[in-house]
């Protein structure tokens, strides 16, 4: 696992984080539930808590889908290529590429969902980017959530040992170490 330079993290006084969606995306409840599940995977192994807010102005984390050049100096590039990016703590910026085709599946396991396709599993990308929002960098461990690449049709949502060790280095395990041992996260 790795961190951003200087190992930024959310301050101890702010471990109950709120998140909101950019209103103009008009996301369905079903899509918002995907992000709620993704946040839960990280709150399960840390003292952090995540609550949805309806105000992008008050929320710690703002999530939005944007296409092409969207004003942050890191333009998206159309289907495939870069899928999303997120900022380090405590900025809370989470952008996904609006030109991608996203799959919403409630499947609990890591696996190959489909043959080669350009449809990307939304929850897999959300779990990865939330890792960045909390302070993790990329990992070379291919099973790890923080591995930078994912193929269309793959689904990888369970935190691996590498992810759990990295995030608990930053925040501790919040008394959930038993849960993380029994969570069966992909080794």
């Amino acid at each position, binding site marked *: *696992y*790795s*961190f*951003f*330079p200087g190992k930024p993290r959310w301050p101890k006084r702010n471990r109950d984080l709120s998140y909101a969606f950019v209103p103009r995306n008009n996301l*369905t409840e*079903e*899509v918002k539930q995907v992000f709620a599940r993704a946040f839960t995977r990280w709150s399960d192994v840390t003292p952090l808590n995540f609550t949805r807010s309806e105000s992008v102005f008050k929320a710690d984390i703002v999530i939005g889908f944007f296409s092409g050049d969207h004003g942050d100096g*890191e333009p*998206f*590039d*159309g*289907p*495939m*290529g*870069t*899928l*999303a*990016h*997120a900022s380090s703590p405590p900025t809370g910026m989470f952008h996904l590429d609006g030109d991608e*085709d*996203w*799959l*919403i*599946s409630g499947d609990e396991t890591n696996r190959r*969902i*489909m*043959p*080669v*396709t*350009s*449809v*990307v599993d*939304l929850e897999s*990308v959300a779990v*990865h*980017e939330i890792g*960045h929002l909390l302070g993790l*960098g*990329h*990992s*070379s*461990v*291919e099973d790890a959530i923080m591995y*930078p*690449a*994912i*193929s*269309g049709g793959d689904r990888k949502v369970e935190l691996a040992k*590498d992810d759990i060790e990295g995030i608990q280095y930053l925040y501790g395990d919040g008394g959930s170490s038993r849960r993380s041992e029994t969570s069966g996260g992909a080794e």
Partner: protein
Amino acid sequence: TFYTNVSSIPTLHLLNATRSAWETFEKLAGCHVGDKADGLSKLKQYFSRFGYISSSSSAANFTDDFDDVLKSAISAYQKNFNLKATGKLDAPTLRQIVRPRCGNPDMVDGASEMNAGRKLLRTVAAAR
């Protein structure tokens, strides 16, 4: 577009997976130091985007020459993705390059801990 389950994805969509902008890199297979090939400047932009080439050299200055800057970027990339560090655009490296990925860089200011664990393991092994 959001598909709520696999069966709702149009078959045609499954068959001709959208080709990403990076597919063009595949024609650079086999290139190595000293070569000049159309498209190497775009590959340098790719490596600059993900932190393997210093962002101080602006994209406009990238040439189509396979120079030492590109070679070291490829070697660092290969180490980060557990590929054989040949410094060449071999098939496994190009297959990895074209995969969809997170837009965050792998390296910041020329440094990366992405593969620190492996280095650590190597050091421990050497010490033993």
